[in-house]
């Protein structure tokens, strides 16, 4: 059990439809690495100048109205948003940027399907709650910086001393985060099943294996 509790400062994003282009603009997709995207998270909102892959946050002119440039949110670990967070482009770089900045969980009333899947591959927990609950969490977090505590085993989000919401996530997906599991390793345990399936397919649908490049 390595990652079973997440405790952290909540940064609020009071918007629907925050797309993955906002989470990380296209320019930074030119990297061939899987890490190092934290400085480019929400780049268009976070900085006043245009950035490049070889620049760091230090080099940039910051928009101090933007929440992640204000203390204590510079150390935020939980992101609270509205509906359809992570819609749009399939870029996993969006999750890499959230992870590299330090976010461990994102709470929203709904998520883009591809983004939601990508989260579990990178130890970022997406939590879906009803719009009413999201409204309430915004109220709780609006006046002063809030700290939430998320228990992944109990599937419970504690937002003040006495109050909590339970949330629903598939156990197997949570497992990936808690135990840092890799899907390729898990699937390759079924190697022979895949081989048998493929051979059957080869016989039944030969045209799929006939194509000459």
């Amino acid at each position, binding site marked *: 059990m390595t990652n079973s509790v997440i405790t952290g400062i909540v940064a609020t994003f009071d918007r629907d439809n925050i797309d993955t282009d906002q989470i990380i603009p296209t320019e930074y997709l030119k990297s061939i690495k*899987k890490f190092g995207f934290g400085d480019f998270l929400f780049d268009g909102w976070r900085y006043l100048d245009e950035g490049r892959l070889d620049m760091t946050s230090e080099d940039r002119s910051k928009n101090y109205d933007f929440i992640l440039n204000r203390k204590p949110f510079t150390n935020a670990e939980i992101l609270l948003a509205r509906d359809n967070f992570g819609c749009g482009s399939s870029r996993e770089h969006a999750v890499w940027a959230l992870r590299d900045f330090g976010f461990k969980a994102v709470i929203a009333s709904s998520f883009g399907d591809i983004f939601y899947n990508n989260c579990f591959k990178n130890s970022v927990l997406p939590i879906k709650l009803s719009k009413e609950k999201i409204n309430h969490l915004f109220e709780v977090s609006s006046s002063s910086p809030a700290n939430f505590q998320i228990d992944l085993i109990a599937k419970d989000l504690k937002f003040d001393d006495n109050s909590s919401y339970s949330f629903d996530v598939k156990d197997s997906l949570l497992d990936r985060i808690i135990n840092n599991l890799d899907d390729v390793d898990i699937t390759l345990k079924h190697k022979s099943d895949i081989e048998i399936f*493929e051979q059957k397919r080869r016989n039944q649908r030969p045209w799929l294996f006939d*194509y000459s490049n």
Partner: protein
Amino acid sequence: MPATLYDKLWDEHLVQTDDNNESLIYIDRHYLHEVTSPQAFEGLRHKQLKPWRLDANVATPDHNVPTDRGDSFNAASIEDEVAKIQVVELDKNCNNFGIHQFDIASNKQGIVHVMGPELGYTLPGMTIVCGDSHTSTHGAFGCLAMGIGTSEVEHVLATQCLKITKLKNMLINFNGHPRRGVTSKDIVLHLIKLIGTAGGTGHAIEFSGSYISSASMESRMTICNMAIEAGAKVGLAGVDKTTLDYVKKHSNLSDSMFSMASEYWKTLKSDPDVNFDQTINIDVSKIKPQVTWGTSPEMTIDFDADIPSQEDINEANHENLLLAKSYMGLDESKTLQDLSFDRIFIGSCTNSRIEDLRDAASALRGKKISKNITEAIVVPGSGMVKAQAEEEGLDKIFLDAGFLWRDPGCSMCLGMNPDQLKPYERCASTSNRNFEGRQGNLGRTHLMSPLMAALTAVNGKITDPS
């Protein structure tokens, strides 16, 4: 039990389902490009694995390639050093692992979702994935096609499977004949306006109805392509004669193999009495040409309708509309016709096929672009589209009107190459996303059909296409 097309494709490819209701789905075709694959290949090397089945994979660079390449261009010619690394990396990975690639110098290179079907790599009934959300395009062929993340690209390379849970079924019936000037792009934008960008989340959307039956494969691809903008990572349409005619023309299958396959392909449609989790009926004859006004594809209106007013916005719960209006510089504008445009982009995996170019050219014959337009570009979706258009003389029409005629790539759809808007420039674009900064930092994107974009080029403003 009656089944939907999605159910049939799911069952056909199901290797196994575990206790957690997660399934391994066998993948027939995997398209790769330079932007979302490098980390996946790196993962394979790290795990000392090889691709499971080489001939399932096809690669091409499309996202960041320059579109003013001309002749004798290769990866080394790319001026943007960072972009060059990515294209060179794709070359290296394809060579090292033995994956077939149409490289940047190939006359078949193109946007992967345009090139794949044209070269017959997309066949009905396949499962198709790519590290790109517009993979839903291939659903037009009765395929189960979806965009995936880079970890999943690695997973598919290593195991030929995707580990996913089953989606719900949504049916969209498009019935009737569209009005003059209304295209597949207007119809899908109208749908997104209606159900919102989260309307199809968690669903596979099947497109059906008399309009779809009468539509070309190009139009069906445009509609399935933008299923993702309606929140659905899977969009699909049943197989019919139009599908089979296209595949016959584009695939390299022998006659005997084609006729054997056809018998199976003809079964790829939803059963008549099957229940969908949601069904929406739309009369396309009532749809007017659609144009987006804001920063989400759901912020779409009829080309002649009013942009949401301050009053409309005050009624809404969130500041989204206000933020969008401000970003788009619409404070003083009541309708889209009040806006003057700076740039025109005809291209992208949504609208860069031959039918799209013919549509746009039809509005440009003998005309010149407005002097207010600083740059208008046409970026054909692939080498094949480009050659076909040149054979038909469409390039001349575009050039005579004042457009630039470019080489294939994703180009200004996402501004990852030098084709980008400058801050505050307003662009009439045939692409699929009007997100903030999508076409360039602070750029303003209005999505529309190729016909509308061409008319906007001529008039400098949104005008009535009928």
